[in-house]
């Protein structure tokens, strides 16, 4: 069974004055298997963010459905959505979404505290993760006292500590310098190697070239996919670049 499955997802926005309808997603179907690392690429306005919002149950599709471990997330009641998200999904955001009022440690604990876990357990879960992410020294600091890369690592720790079935990352490297980007991508790769399923939306070819599969979205549809297969990062990078060039040139089909 796939961990995530999108079946014919369609999303139509109606503009404020009711007249124009905008079709953000036409018909998106794909599967993500357990342990996969998938990158979704596309230009601005291609529908990436809408898709991510629907996968994250932040938004509901106009048609089609999303299955998480075979369960229709559309069936989750509105009142239970936040808890569902908390228990099953982990998020990494472009702008970190750390609360200034908490230390990094408390920021990381936040979802667990919401789940009602005790301090002992939280602490025991955090230690290996903090070590892996190299943020043990920073735990007592506040978000505004550390760099962007460190903030993002704390945000990743907050995501991983709940042991989510699926990590959804929205432009996780968007606000980072190149060194921090490399570090974060290494972390993602490590985590994935240990079995964590990751779905990442990104603009960055470099970020996407570290994934196991790259999915291209154009005009609200899955336009093309590249599997890493035996390629190295560099080779995958090249393939992605070529694909993007072709998309930019308006080709309707791609042969790579």
């Amino acid at each position, binding site marked *: 069974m796939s961990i995530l499955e999108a079946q014919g997802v369609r999303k139509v926005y109606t503009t404020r004055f009711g007249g124009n309808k905008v079709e953000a997603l036409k018909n998106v179907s794909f599967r993500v298997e357990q342990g996969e690392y998938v990158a979704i690429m596309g230009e601005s306005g291609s529908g990436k963010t809408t898709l991510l919002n629907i996968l994250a149950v932040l938004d509901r599709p106009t048609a089609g459905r999303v299955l998480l471990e075979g369960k229709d997330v559309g069936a989750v009641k509105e*009142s239970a*959505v*936040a*808890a569902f*998200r*908390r228990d099953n999904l982990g*998020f990494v*955001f472009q702008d970190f*979404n*750390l*609360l*200034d*009022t*908490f230390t990094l440690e*408390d920021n990381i*604990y*936040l*979802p667990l*505290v*919401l789940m*009602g876990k*005790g*301090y002992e357990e*939280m602490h025991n879960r955090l230690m290996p993760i903090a070590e892996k992410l190299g943020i043990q020294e920073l735990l007592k600091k*506040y978000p*505004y*006292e550390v760099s962007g890369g460190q903030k993002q690592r704390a945000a990743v720790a*907050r995501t991983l500590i709940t042991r989510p079935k699926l990590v959804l990352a929205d432009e996780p490297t968007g606000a980072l310098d190149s060194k921090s980007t490399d570090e974060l991508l290494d972390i993602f790769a490590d985590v994935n190697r240990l079995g964590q399923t990751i779905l990442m939306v990104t603009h960055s070819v470099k970020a996407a070239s570290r994934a196991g599969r790259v999915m291209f979205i154009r005009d609200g549809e899955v336009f093309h996919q590249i599997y890493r297969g035996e390629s190295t990062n560099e080779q995958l990078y090249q393939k992605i670049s070529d694909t993007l060039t072709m998309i930019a040139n308006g080709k309707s089909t791609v042969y790579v």
Partner: protein
Amino acid sequence: MKHNIYPKLAWTGIKKNKRLYLPYILTCIGMVMMFYIVSFLSVNEYLGSCKGGKEIQQMLVLGSGVIGVFATIFLFYTNSFLMRRRKKEFGLYNILGMGKWNIARVLLWEGVMIAVISLAAGLFGGILFSKIGELCMVNILEAEAVFSMSVEKSSVVTTMILFSVIFALILLNGLRQLHGANPIELLHSENTGEKPPRGNWLFALCGIVLLCGAYYLAVTIENPLAAMIIFFIAVVMVIIATYLLFVSGSVTICRGLQKNKKYYYKTNHFVSVSSMVYRMKRNGAGLASICILCTMVLVMVSSTVCLYIGKEDSLRSRYPRDINITVRRGSAEKLEDGNLAKRRAVVDDELAKYNLVPENILNYRIAAAVGLDSDGKMDLSSSSGYDFNEDYTNVWQIYLVPLEDYNRLMGEKETLEPGEAFIYATKNKYRSDKIQLGSSVVFEIKKVLKDFVDNEEDSMQILPSIFLFVPNYEEVLKQLSGVADYYGNQAFSERWMYAFDLSCTEEKQIEIYESLKSCLSKAEEEFRKENLSGKGIYTFSIESFASERTGFYALYGGLFFLGVLLGIVFVFAAVLIMYYKQVSEGYEDQARFEIMQNVGMTKAEIKKSVSSQVLTVFFLPLLAAGMHLGFAFPLVRKLLLLFGLVNLKLIILVTLSCFLVFALMYILVYRTTSRAYYTIVSGMGN
């Protein structure tokens, strides 16, 4: 750039930020209105022509001064809120290519618009409501009301000048801030990074010590005279302590809670405690200000209301009977019964002309001196009893009263041996079981009496009094005749008190009072001629309850009116601070609200946590104010004693109901402002 773009920009600026500007403009209007009304009343001719009106007007002049100063400080404070939020907009204008000069012109237009609106509406409202103010005052003075509208030009002019100056200063301050900032700073002025709040336990400790000290002072105070001075010391201590505790103490407590891992890492406490630290750090000063304003309002309103309601009581203790006559001895000669009988006959004969007899007669002898107490030894020569620079902590007014007069007045049959005495103390507690007058005369105190008749001299003055009831009164006075007072005169001087009620109208009483006065002074002249040796010089004073009443009412009514008026002004201020606090917190919490949602908090959870924080933060000042009021109560009571108000039940009742009314109002304000808060937080605002 077209010229009318500035007023247009200014106007849309105000309109777009109406959530911020509307309360500000309303406050300006309110301040203008209040100032005009008070200033109008202080010069209003009709009020001045009423009995007691002049006295009230003097008080109102002071009141208008207080309002003027307060308005300046307060409008500056609220304007700083506005500027902080507007800076971003100005930064944007600047980046879009508007020079500082252009922005200054927008600011100028804005200032002018607000000033014009506030002055016009404020004066209009002031003129409209000044009549109500006048009617209130006239009613307090129990004079005839006239129903004609009048406008005091001089007050209009003063109000316009004062507030124009205030608005100009506010504008200049805004321009100064604008001048000193660059566009990037302007853009980001709202969210400049914040240092982690660290509770300073030393400050918190200082706050606790100061507060306990102030409370201790307030509770242990016995002498009302000392209460005056200590009141001010305690007020200053409480103000400092409140600021320290709100700013630092609260953060320290939250930090302490965070250290307790079992407590802190619970769903209910986690978010609340940590955001509370920030909230308190940002709003500590504002909350402390609210708390102090609340306390001020409560103390002021409750004490002036007490005075006003209890004015009949105070009046009665100051003037125990309708007509009160005191005859004082002018020299070393004793107040003989014969001398007294002659004067009493004069009074009774005069009354007979009106077909009246004195009723409820108070008729007793009394000898008075001022003494400095040290463990039951009264030093009669070291205190003048008049000098304001003296330390009055242990100074007593001592009255000797013959025991037989006491028995007669109170209907008792007490007997005492020579050297024994009963004691009755007012305004303070006398602790020793002995009392020594001068160097030789000592009394053993057999009993502390609970009651004695009101004595006008005692209620008039602020010294606490001891009434000493002695069996062999004349003997004792003879023994004391050698003791000198501060000025070298004989320490004890004797009086004869003769007071009575009359069953006739108050107008009649005043008429009788006038004629008694003239015939007593005529009689005194004749007695003096009969007794040319010069030993028989007596002075007398006569006071009428009815004729003093208006003056009394003017004083108490004036205090009451001012208390309520200033109370309203301060409440205005407190409400506005609360409102701005809520709104600015709303904007800050907006982002946090979103993040928490992203992390997986449900809307209900967030709302619960946020509302519990808001509730705590909001009601903390009220609780603290209630506590301050509770501890201030003994002090306030002592101060009211100075005004002759002894009715404890009344004071408690009034204070409690003031607090309840205030709390009710507070809750109403909370409900309105928290609605504004939720609108902003849930993003329906901008």
